[in-house]
């Protein structure tokens, strides 16, 4: 079984996100290990981009901090290779098309695979454009994760039919960020997926509290939390390891209840 498939094999998965290099890559490395210890099942690592159009203000600022600390794609590969020697937790890159394309798509995916990345999530790569990157990903056995949104409707079956790894279900309209309420009928979205393919569905965008996580997990196979964790990193910087550990532990516990 691949590392990604294992993520969803025992109970609901908790998937935290941090921006690589925020505040620096040494902290990111420690955060990965701490989040694993706290019960994370898969970790999403953001490769910072100058213009993250799908992100709300919290992750926009994290990207800016990471770039300001001279984080580059190469340095992130080095960090991942290092951390991979210490942990077997599945890791996914989250970044935009331009950093991948500028690096050379095939070189990027081959290096990602080599350093132990299991999946990539590219929010500005919809189904219509994914062909080229998808075939590269397949040849290096990296899952290119497909996203579905509340607006996807009839597109869901097309997207799901061709999806690998898991499906990233965007819970709400708009960009990433903490929301007090999620009004989309997620259950319906996911039922369309499951009609077409037996593939795990992880729900992201807007989730920050244990109650929300628990509530969302009844519809899907896992929950993804980004901005709420990045906010802790923003607040505590170098000292964020412990508070992030506590937060992840609390969220994972809520899913196990």
């Amino acid at each position, binding site marked *: 079984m691949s590392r990604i498939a294992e993520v969803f094999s025992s109970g609901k998965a908790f998937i935290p996100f941090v921006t690589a290099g925020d505040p620096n890559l040494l902290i990111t490395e420690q955060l990965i290990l701490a989040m694993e210890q706290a019960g994370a099942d898969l970790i999403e690592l953001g490769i910072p*981009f*100058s*213009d993250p*159009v*799908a992100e*709300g*203000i919290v992750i*926009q600022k994290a990207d800016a901090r990471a*770039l300001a600390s001279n984080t*580059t*794609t*190469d340095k992130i590969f080095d960090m991942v290779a290092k951390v991979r020697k210490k942990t077997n937790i599945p890791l996914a890159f989250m970044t*935009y*098309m*331009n*950093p*991948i*394309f*500028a*690096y050379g798509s095939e070189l990027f995916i081959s290096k990602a695979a080599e350093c132990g990345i299991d999946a990539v999530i590219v*929010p*500005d*790569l*919809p*189904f*219509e*454009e994914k062909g080229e990157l998808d075939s590269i990903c397949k040849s290096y056995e990296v899952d290119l994760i497909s*996203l*579905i*949104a*509340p*607006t*996807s*409707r009839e*597109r869901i079956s097309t*997207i799901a039919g061709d999806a690998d790894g898991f499906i990233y279900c*965007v819970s709400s*309209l*708009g*960009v990433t960020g903490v929301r007090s309420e999620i009004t989309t009928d997620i259950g319906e979205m996911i039922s369309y997926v499951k009609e077409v393919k037996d593939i795990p569905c992880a729900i992201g965008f807007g989730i920050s509290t244990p109650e929300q996580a628990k509530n969302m997990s009844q519809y899907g196979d896992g929950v993804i939390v980004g901005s709420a964790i990045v906010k802790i990193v923003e607040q505590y910087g170098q000292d964020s390891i412990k508070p992030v550990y506590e937060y992840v532990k609390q969220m994972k516990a809520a899913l196990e209840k």
Partner: protein
Amino acid sequence: MAKGKYGEYGGQFIPETLMNAVLEVENAYEHYKNDPDFMKELDDLLANYAGRPSLLYYADKMTKDLGGAKIYLKREDLNHTGSHKINNVMGQVLLAKKMGKTRVIAETGAGQHGVATATVAALMGLECEIYMGKEDTDRQALNVFRMELLGAKVHAVTSGTQTLKDAVNETMREWTSRMEDTYYVLGSVMGPHPFPMIVRDFQKIIGKEIKSQILEEEGKLPDAIIACVGGGSNAMGAFYEFISDTTVRLIGCEAAGLGVDHPKNAATMANGRVGIFHGMKSYFCQDEYGQIAPVYSISAGLDYPGIGPEHAMLSDTGRADYVPVTDEEAVDAFEYLSRMEGIIPAIESAHAVAYVRKLAPTMEKDKIIVINISGRGDKDVAAIARYKGVKIYE
């Protein structure tokens, strides 16, 4: 060519959340562009509201002063709202209305696209919100007030470099959160398909008019058409009709800021590489890791790190040439055209004028150059005064 592709360029690189909204625009446009009633309504608005056709003016003094090719000015500055932007906005806002949308949003750089959008929204009774980089709201304060006067809400964008690219980012983010009643009036031949096509189609009237006007006046086609290029809508509008007329040189003038080799410039073709951003594959100013570069130009309308995908193709195939023009050359040309012809051009358009000052003397007197004067310069007067260190009461 594949749908929405210009050679290898173009495409639809946007979040899944926006895909159905973009497909809805595409379907509506494909329907209405073949609807004679829609086109008649648009033509009527362009003639009776925007003031088309715009003049093609023979710049006699400038021609004599430069001593070479005959120079004609396509007077898009004379359109209602003072630039070519109204051609596209009229078409897109009419389309939005037909689609049943009640609210339009748009990015703006210099403010010309924002003003045009606010104007047509007022005319058609739609709610309007404009996103503009904070730096641009400062240097184009007059246009901010104009938009507000027209009933639009103007958001000053404080993320990133606080200029046009950040205004596009923020408008895309806003559209992602509200699509049901909202149409994104993209202002240039850029972004995801179908926008580069729609904007080009609504702007190609510039070149069509140039062709019939110059044939009427001179009995032959021009030898060169010169236009400034940021995203590239006025240039695409002027060029498109002439693409198959291979004797006509097509030249886009991009903003070289403090110099094409100086870090502070916005010359995408000179310094950019192929990338994927703002929904499209095209050329972008970026670093080795694909981080978009913080570009600079005195002209807020050309201060953009990318260029429309069809221009990328025209450049690769050699059909069009793209040349850099510095701030200093543009400001000189701004003053030159003002004094020489009594026409104050937009600082954007002054980039094209600047290049013609170099080009015209190298051409024979029986050759013809058309410069697209994409907008008028009233909005720039205060900024030019500041550039020259003249203190005026704004």
